[in-house]
C-alpha cells in the first residue's frame, strides 16, 4: 500500500529526514517512535503534503501512484488521513458543516454522487456511535474551546467519517488522560480492517498498549535506526532512547 524509499526532506536550511525506508501493507499497524526532534512529525507532515517541508530526495509510492505528485487535498481524496497533533480551530464552522464539505468534495473526486442532508446525517449518526462522540460537540465551532480529549476524539470521528485507507496518527496520545486515551484507541481499533493501514506516531509506549502495532520503528536523526515487533516498544519504555543513540553512535 505504501512504500517509502530513501525519503529526504528539509524545512528551510534544516535537513530533517535523512533517508527513510518503510513498507506498509494493508491491514498493518506500524508505530513510529523516537526521541523529540527525531523527525516523527515531519514524516507525518511530508506524507500529508504540508508545503513548508521540501522533499529533497527519495520516493513515496502509494497504491501504485507517486504520492508526492498529489496536492494535499488530492492525497486526502486518495484516502490518506492525518490525525493532527494540534487540531486547528475554525471559528464559526461546525464540525458537521466541515465534514459535509469534506465528504462531498471527496465523493465528487471519486466520481460518486454527493450526499444530501438526510444521507449525510445518517452516516454521521452511525460514525458518532462508533467513536462515542456527542452531537453537541459536533454542532460547535470546529475545535474552538475543545478540551485536549475532545479535539482528539473529534479527529478520530473525522477519520471514521472519511474512511481512509492510510491513517497517520500524529502524537494522538499527547494531552490525553487515560480515559480519553482509551476511548480514542478504541475508536481507532474499531476502524481497523484488512484493507486499511495505520501509522501511529508516538513518543510513548502508553498508546501502544491500546493500539497494538504489528511493527515498531525507531526514528532517530531522520532515519529509521531500528525496527521490530511490538516488544521493541516495551524495551524502549524500559530502557529509554539512550541505548539506541549509543548503538547508532557505535555503528
Amino acid at each position, binding site marked *: 500500500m505504501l512504500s517509502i524509499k530513501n525519503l529526504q526532506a528539509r524545512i528551510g536550511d534544516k535537513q530533517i529526514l535523512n533517508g527513510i525506508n518503510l513498507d506498509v501493507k494493508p491491514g498493518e499497524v506500524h508505530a513510529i517512535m523516537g526521541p523529540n526532534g527525531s523527525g516523527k512529525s515531519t514524516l507525518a507532515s511530508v506524507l*500529508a*503534503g*504540508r*508545503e*513548508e517541508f521540501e522533499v529533497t530526495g527519495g520516493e513515496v509510492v502509494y497504491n501504485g501512484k507517486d504520492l508526492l505528485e498529489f*496536492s*494535499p*487535498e488530492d*492525497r*486526502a*481524496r486518495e484516502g490518506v*488521513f*492525518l490525525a*493532527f497533533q494540534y*487540531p*486547528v*480551530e*475554525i*471559528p*464559526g*464552522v461546525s464540525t458537521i*458543516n*466541515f*465534514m459535509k*464539505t*469534506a*465528504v462531498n*468534495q*471527496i465523493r465528487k*473526486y471519486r466520481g460518486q454522487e454527493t450526499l444530501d442532508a438526510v444521507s449525510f446525517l445518517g452516516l454521521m449518526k452511525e460514525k458518532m456511535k462508533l467513536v462515542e462522540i456527542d452531537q453537541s460537540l459536533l454542532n460547535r*465551532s470546529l475545535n474552538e474551546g475543545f478540551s485536549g480529549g475532545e479535539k482528539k476524539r473529534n479527529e478520530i470521528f*473525522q477519520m471514521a467519517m*472519511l474512511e481512509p485507507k492510510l491513517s497517520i496518527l500524529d502524537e494522538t496520545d499527547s494531552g490525553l488522560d487515560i480515559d480519553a486515551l482509551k476511548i480514542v484507541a478504541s475508536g481507532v481499533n474499531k476502524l481497523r480492517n484488512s484493507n486499511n493501514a495505520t501509522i501511529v506516531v508516538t513518543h510513548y509506549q502508553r498508546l501502544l498498549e491500546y493500539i497494538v502495532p504489528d511493527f515498531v520503528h525507531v526514528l532517530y536523526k531522520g532515519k529509521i535506526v531500528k525496527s521490530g515487533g511490538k516488544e521493541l516498544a516495551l524495551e524502549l519504555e524500559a530502557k529509554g532512547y539512550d541505548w539506541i543513540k549509543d548503538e547508532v553512535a557505535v555503528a
Partner: protein
Amino acid sequence: MSKDNQLLEELTSREYEHGWNVALETDSAPKGLNEDIVRFISERKNEPEWMLEWRLKAFRLWSKMTEPKWPNVTYPAINYQDIIYYSAPKQSAKPKNLEDVDPELIKTFEKLGISLTEQKRLTGVAVDAVIDSVSVATTFKEKLGELGIIFCSFSEAVREHPELIKKYLGSVVPMSDNYFAALNSAVFSDGSFCYIPKGVRCPMELSTYFRINAANTGQFERTLIVAEEGSYVSYLEGCTAPMRDENQLHAAVVEIYAMKDAHVKYSTVQNWYPGDKEGKGGIYNFVTKRALCAGDNSKVSWTQVETGSAITWKYPSCVLKGDNSSGEFYSVAVTNNMQQADTGTKMIHIGKNTKSRIVSKGISAGKSQNSYRGQVHIMKRAEGSRNFSQCDSLLMGDQCGAHTFPYIDVENSTSKVEHEATTSKIGEDQIFYCQQRGIDEESAVALIVNGYAKEVLNQLPMEFAVEAQKLLALTLEGSVG
C-alpha cells in the same frame, strides 16, 4: 513567499460578474452642477415648487461646504463639474404598469436576477428597481396597499404623498448634515419611499435594487422609511454597476424614522464595481444612513455586507431617542486588491435604558485598506444605557491593512460600554487542515471566511444570506496568503 505572491496575483482572475452594461437610450442632463441643473432635475421629475426650493437650499448649502478629509482613504480630487447628475432611461411616457416598461430594462433586471414580472411572486419580495436616476418599477404595490403600506419610488411619493415627504424628508439626516448628504439633497434623483401604518407588520421583505448603467453618471438615491407605532418592516437593498475605467460617484441618503414600539430591519448587500486590480475605475460610495428611534421601545437593525466599491465611506447609525429603544449594527466589509473602506456606525444614546450592539467583521485582502470607525455616545440623560461592540479584523496576505477607530463618550455613571476587538490572519494551518480533509484551497477560504462572518450573515434574510455567502467567496477567490 513567492507562493503567496503568486496566489495573491491570482486574485484578479475572476472578473466582476455584473460588469455588463445595456445600451439603453437615456435622457441626461449636461455635465456639471449649478442651480440650473438642480432646476432641470426637479423639472424632469415634475416636482412641486416646495421640493425645488428644498433642493436649491441644499445646493446653496453644499456650495459653501468642503469635502471631508478625515476618512482613512485616499483618492484623486473629484471634479464635481465633470459628472452627469441626471440620467434616465428614455421612455415615451411614465409606465402605468409593468407591460409598459421598456423590455430592455426588464432584461437588465432579469440579468441581475430580479424579476419584475410578478410571475415569480412566490419569492415573496416586493422590489423597487432603480436604474441610473429613476425608479422603473415597483412590484406588489396593490397587495401592500391593502394593508395601508406605501412602497413606491421617491418621485411618486413626492407627488402622491407630499404631506408625508414634507414631514419626514431631512428629519433624520438634515441637508446640512455633511457634504455628501447636502449634495444628495440637492440632486437626488430617485429612490424608494416606504410607510408602514400603525400596528402593521409588513408581510414580505421590501427590496430596492440599485443599478448604475450610464457612463459618467452619479447616482444619488434617497430612501425614506417611516415606521408608525408598533409596526414592523424588513427592508433589503442591493447594488451593482458596470465595469468602467472612470470612477463613478454614488452618494445616497437613507433615513429611517421609527415610532414607539416600531421595529425596522435594514439589510444591504453592496456589490458596486470595485475597480480593477490596479485600482482603475470603480464606484466611490459615499453614503449617509441613519435611523431615528424616536419612540420608546423602538428598534432598528442595520445589517450590511459590503464587498464592492473602490471606496466606501459609510456609517449606518442609530439615534436612540426613545426610552428603552435599541439599535444594532452588523457588518461584514470585504476589501480586496486596491479597495478602500472606511465604514462603521454611530450609536447615539439619548433616551434612558437604551441599548446598542455593534458587530463588525472586516476582511482585508490584496493591497486593500479596511477601517472600522465607530462612535458610541451615551448622553447624560441616557441613564442605564448599554453598548456592546465587537470589532474583528481578518487579514489575508501581508500587503493589506486593517484599522480600528473607536470613539467612546459616556456622560453618566449608570451606563455600561463594552468594546472587544480582535485581529487574526487566515492561517496556513487552517487551510492545510481543510486540505488534509479533502477540501480544496478555494473552498477552504470560503468556509473559513463564512465561518468568521457567520454572526452577521445570520442576520440576513435567508435568500440574501445565500447570495452574500457566495459573494464573499467570489470576492476573495484565490486570495490566500
